[in-house]
């Protein structure tokens, strides 16, 4: 029982990282209609720039983290302006392919500067452990869970109560009508990319600090694991991203512990995908998605 609770706690923390990454996808998809695969690149750049600022420049961890989040947000907005905006409303697959191209370019740039070895950001949390009853939770996991809750709450408030948040929703709902009401689609698109960049960077930092998966090549693949999450939750549903993230995180964590032997090597890597396919067979629009009505 205790052991299961322990795994559950780990799963929730992993799920929170997935949820944040998925939220980045959802926001861009909701506001601009673009399916942004470059998210994985933001993860990598966020993690490595934190490494640079914290370990090489010597800034305190939290300052380094905030600066790199801002930096990646800026990079994301610039990418939108330079490469994506022009093709955003073209056909379906041109924007996907463009963001895919961007995704491919980002990790090699990092290895040009920091090589392909395993690095470490260090251990800003200390491997301290909080005990709740018999369950021990690392401080990193607590930090991840708390920050995720805050971020999700801030987003909820931002979208509901601020002018900009409402403008973003309006653009998502009906771009032309929003434009006619004086909402700048450029601003909204760039802002949504910046938010996605910030979320990706944050996810990357969480993944790369101690207790995560470490800082090295292949970090972008964790962002790909957020793809089943958004399919599970519905591509345009922020709530779906969070719930889907938690489901995938928890199930994957249990699969790591229990299913390793019986289902063959590397089963935990395909669990999210199998889960996604099972859901898609029943509900192609995802758990919280709305079925698109298509008119001629």
């Amino acid at each position, binding site marked *: 029982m205790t052991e299961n609770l322990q795994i559950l706690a780990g799963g929730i923390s992993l799920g929170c990282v997935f949820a944040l990454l998925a939220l980045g996808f959802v926001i861009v998809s909701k506001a601009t209609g673009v399916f942004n695969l470059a998210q994985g690149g933001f993860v990598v750049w966020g993690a490595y720039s934190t490494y640079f600022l914290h370990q090489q420049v010597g800034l305190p961890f939290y300052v380094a983290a905030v600066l790199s989040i801002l930096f990646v947000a800026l990079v994301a907005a610039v990418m939108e302006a330079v490469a994506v905006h022009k093709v955003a409303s073209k056909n*379906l697959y041109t924007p996907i392919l463009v963001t895919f191209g961007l995704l*491919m370019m980002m990790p*090699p740039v990092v*290895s040009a500067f920091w090589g392909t070895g395993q690095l470490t950001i260090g251990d800003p949390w200390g491997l301290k452990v909080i005990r709740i009853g018999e369950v021990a939770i690392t401080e990193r996991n607590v930090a991840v869970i708390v920050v995720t809750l805050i971020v999700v709450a801030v987003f909820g408030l931002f979208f509901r109560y601020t002018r900009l948040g409402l403008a973003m929703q309006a653009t998502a709902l009906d771009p032309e009508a929003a434009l006619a009401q004086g909402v700048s689609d450029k601003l909204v698109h760039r802002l949504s990319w910046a938010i996605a960049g910030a979320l990706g960077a944050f996810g990357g930092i969480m993944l790369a600090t101690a207790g995560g998966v470490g800082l090295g090549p292949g970090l972008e693949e964790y962002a790909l694991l957020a793809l089943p999450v958004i399919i599970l939750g519905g591509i345009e549903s922020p709530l779906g991203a969070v719930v889907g993230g938690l489901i995938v995180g928890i199930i994957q964590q249990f699969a790591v512990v229990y299913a390793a032997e019986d289902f063959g*090597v590397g089963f935990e890597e395909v669990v999210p*995908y199998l889960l996604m*396919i099972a859901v*898609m*067979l029943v509900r192609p629009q995802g758990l919280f998605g709305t079925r698109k009505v298509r008119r001629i």
Partner: protein
Amino acid sequence: MAVDVSPGVAEKNSASKHAAPKLRLVNSRAGRIGVAVFIVLIVAFPLNFGDTYWLGVLNSAGIAAIAAMGLNVLTGYAGQLSLGHAAFVSIGAFTAQYVGGQLGLPMIVWLPAAGIAAAVVGAAVAPFALRLHGPYLAIVSLALVAIVVWVARNIPSITGGNEGTFVTAEATLGPINFAELSIGPLSFVREQGMFILIWSMVGLFLLLTANVMRTRAGRAMQAVRDHDIAAEVLGVRMMRTQANAFVLSTFIAGVAGGLLAVNLEYIRPDEFGVHLSVEYLAIIVIGGLASLWGPVLGALFVTMVPVIVDIFSDSLPFIQHGGTDGMSTTDMSLLLYGLLIVIFLLAEPKGLVAVIRRIRDRVRPPRKAAVNSPA
């Protein structure tokens, strides 16, 4: 089979120029000459060109071209974005080794078997995949790659598990062994024979796709891509059309996988990951989506990228020279693929094919002007 309009009539009746193309394997004299030249080149070129390194590069390019032609059917002509092509290539590769190597059957059996095995999986996946649109299909196909790699790692009796397997299937057609080709007293190196085999297959699949796309089924695919609802209203059956595209695409991928296996002589499940799908996608985008020669041009171009990076690796900045500093050649190639994909999509979405056409038009103005001039 097809109604053949004699050339004289076609010349007089200008409307017939816009009618449905005639259903023939090659539909013009220039085309027939082109095919003859292609055949001669495929045999003559490798026999007079002994540089095994460059022949090897061209062989990889040929195989990539075939696989990309398969993806072009699905993504270019039928408009379904797939990131899962590597999965079908992988199925073809391991089937080829199983049928040709373990069962010891000849190439006339294992090469089609590789295609059919991939097509069977493709047909099984198609009904699920076709319920999905746009990004959903892209992600599900990505899942397929992960699942096929996982399955392949866990059936060591066929795939050799994680470590992979040597390929013992033989590239023989009757008395001809392409791996140890000899004509009379002359004997040739492996790369020369494989070149003839691979590029003949490229030619065969070029003819196949060109002709399929002229048929009703092929035009239906393009109609569904351009406007699915309009096509359906006009009586195109969407499900069947897209399933056709899926099966044809995966069959071609499977055959490419079979050829890849014999060419590499050693295959591992991990080699058929997402990066391979990416390479095929880069090929068709750079070469030109929904064009016949796009995959071939794209494959030649994309295969050259790592080769050129290798050649210039001493003078390029940031490249690894032993150790873990800087990026590997693979990284550099990935960076360039990504850059090229973005540049082509923004600047020339029709790819290299359109670039070449424009250059040709500048050098030799199109003949259309002469035909339309009042006479």
